[in-house]
């Protein structure tokens, strides 16, 4: 029988909240894995409260948690912990992104869970990693970004740095975790052995330094990487240029300098000895930027874009989020995708970035309501009766929010 998607048959026990960990399990759910999201009683994943909200539902939560099953448990209660330990026995992967040490204090450290299930793969995601002087500190995306030397590389040299208004570090750490879990699953497939994986935002951010670390180190400190605003410090013209109504990104390599000069009607620049190599153009880059922007000031961004595209200059419009969401390429490829939540209604989110030829259609997934799958999961996988689950809910060991009228639960296949 053809599986419904790549990871059908794998079961993931997911203690993660916020963004980095939920990114990993979201991609696993998109690939067909069964993800049991363990939410901490009484309120569950804090992102249930994040904007934008409608009908009691958070778009943020929906984007990150589609296709997962929610159980909401008081793990500090021994009965809750016992149920979770039963689930550990039937899962392939356990993920958590608490502060280092917290999962062990809950009674679910690697030394405990590996004995419950010797084939288990456990992955911890944290800001700074499970060991080292910084491991105990609280951390979020931008904190790891600051420590990694990445934030210092964004902005004008004489001004404070900037940070991007999006969660590059969290999402990237989530994808790194996904890769490591996969390799461990491949290894387990051959050897039958589980293992523990330590993923951090700091490692993932630092991994993005394709040039800075080696160039500083290799040159013995002669090359000091530094932020340089809208234009690159090592190549020119390479940067963001102002048009009448917006900005263009342009990179002009050696063979595109002459066509660019011609397009600007500035054939006189072609033989100008100040500009005939990249090194000289870097030296005179502010002059060059001024010349190009003086030419562009009479152009709308999209007109200049077409003109430069015709000359095969690598160029792009700096699109705003709304513009990107309306771009025909992003729509055609479903880079931006419209989904329908049972409570919230229609919503656009980024599409799945992993495209498999054997599984071209995305799965139809729903984000769970809090504790929606308490009964299903604990009766099927932990041997509890429906009455016992109800009693535990009455006791507050398990929590579930009532489904609104007209909303039906998604039964497992």
């Amino acid at each position, binding site marked *: 029988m053809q599986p419904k998607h790549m990871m059908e048959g794998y079961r993931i026990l997911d203690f993660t909240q916020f963004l980095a960990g939920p990114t990993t399990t979201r991609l696993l759910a998109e690939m067909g894995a069964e993800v049991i999201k363990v939410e901490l009683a009484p309120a569950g994943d804090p992102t249930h409260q994040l904007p934008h909200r409608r009908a009691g539902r958070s778009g943020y939560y929906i*984007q990150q948690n589609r296709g997962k099953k929610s159980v909401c448990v008081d793990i500090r209660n021994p009965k809750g912990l016992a149920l979770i330990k039963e689930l550990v026995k039937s899962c392939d992967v356990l993920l958590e992104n608490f502060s280092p040490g917290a999962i062990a204090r809950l009674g679910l450290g690697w030394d405990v869970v590996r004995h419950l299930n010797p084939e288990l793969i456990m992955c911890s995601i944290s800001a700074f990693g499970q060991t080292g002087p910084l491991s105990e500190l609280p951390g979020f995306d931008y904190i*790891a970004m600051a420590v990694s030397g990445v934030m210092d590389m964004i*902005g004008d040299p004489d001004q404070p740095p900037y940070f991007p208004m999006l969660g*590059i570090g969290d999402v990237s750490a989530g994808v790194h975790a996904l890769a490591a879990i996969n390799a461990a699953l491949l290894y387990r497939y051959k050897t039958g052995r589980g293992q523990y994986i330590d993923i951090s935002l700091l490692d993932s951010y630092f991994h993005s330094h394709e040039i800075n670390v080696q160039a*500083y180190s*290799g040159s013995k400190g002669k090359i000091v990487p530094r932020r340089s605003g809208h234009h690159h410090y090592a190549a020119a013209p390479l940067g963001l240029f102002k048009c009448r109504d917006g900005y263009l990104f342009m990179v002009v390599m050696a063979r595109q300098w002459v066509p660019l000069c011609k397009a600007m009607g500035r054939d006189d620049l072609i033989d100008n000895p100040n500009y005939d190599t990249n090194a000289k153009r870097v030296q005179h880059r502010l002059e060059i930027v001024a010349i190009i922007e003086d030419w562009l000031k009479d152009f709308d961004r999209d007109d200049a874009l077409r003109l430069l595209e015709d000359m095969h200059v690598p160029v792009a419009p700096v699109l705003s*989020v709304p513009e990107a969401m309306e771009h025909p390429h*992003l729509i055609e490829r479903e880079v931006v995708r419209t989904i329908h939540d049972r409570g919230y209604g229609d919503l656009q989110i980024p599409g799945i970035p*992993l495209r498999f*030829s054997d599984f071209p259609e995305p799965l139809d997934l729903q984000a769970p309501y809090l504790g929606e799958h308490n009964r299903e999961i604990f009766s099927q996988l932990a041997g509890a009766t429906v009455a016992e689950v109800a009693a535990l809910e009455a006791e507050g060991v398990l929590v579930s929010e009532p489904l609104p009228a007209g909303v039906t639960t998604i039964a497992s296949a």
Partner: protein
Amino acid sequence: MQPKHVLDGYRVLDLTQYLAGPAATNLMVQMGAEVIKVEIGPHGEPVRNFPFCREGRSGYFIQQNRGKKSLCLDPKTPEGLDIIKQLLKHCDVFIENFAPGVVSRLGLGWDVVRELNPEIIMCSISAFGQEGPLAAYPGFDYIAQAYAAVSDLIGEPDRAPSLPMLAFGDVGTGVHALTAIGYALLERARDGGGQWLDISLLDSYFHYHEVSVQAYSASGGKVQPHRSGSHHYAVGPSGIFKAKDGHLMILALLHQWAPLCRAMGREDLIADPKFVDNDARMIHREEMIAIIEAWLQTLPSDAAALEILEGARIPCAPILSVPEAMAHPHMIERRTVRTIEDRLLGKFQIPGMPLRFSKYAVDEDIQAPLLGEHNAEILQRFLRYSPAQVRDLESRQVLFSKPV
């Protein structure tokens, strides 16, 4: 027998260059896979000349290509193309990052490759993906970043956006490619059969939008994502604050506002209606920033500020430069920054392996190949070519190598 690492036994034919593709195979090789890097003769991988260079060796090349085997050939010759085709029969993965359509024109499109080896996983990496209106355009990291509406979210609102001086997009796309390849291998182990993977910088960059796309869409355009300089536009305090010596990142979200007020000795602000919740603090953002920066100026040093904030469990950090990060005890202890030794370039530092497995330590002793260093080994082992045949192909410029 104990495998040497998690991907021991997998073989990859790597037709990628520059950064995104090599980042994927860089991680694979560090997990024990055998990676045969096919370089296009006569010069091979263009980054062999990227800075920093010494002794004819590029630190850039070494960082991305340690542990790979180099086979340098001309795929436009029939014999060169045939070598690639024969090798594909021995590989689990074929990865390429040419512009869409180029591998097909070389005679190595998915239709050909799957016939040669029905179990192979082929992964194509491109700027915009294999089809769609932008597919044919030339693309680099920053180009996809601009189209993905990521550049637009970096910098001051009333000025041009700022370019990050590092390649999130290429490296991130490489990691996305790695995951897709790995899950395809896992599926193949159970169900059999290869498939073709289409990975792009645009998809990977757009995937980073954790809030902006849904918030704009769901609010019917009321929430307009925008760059907002050194402070976040939607939550706070969350930003870069001027301190005594330099700048500090401070993130005091929701429940951390009261501890921050107490840490500053300003209990009076906790219940102040101007700052009582996140919405109020966003309305009075400038005033709030001024209060925090004024407090930071009263402290003797940034270190003193960090000590107080860390004591109150408020997420904070110094904004380290690359050299400072490389010298930080945490990065050194965990080998987030790692020293390697190239046979020619000598010792220098690169970022460490970001995937940490309990069963295997990182292998420090792998070398980036010289151009065509493994021509003879690869052709003899898999295709039974004799040393004389390899020499003949080198003399006829089907194969290339560059001895030291």
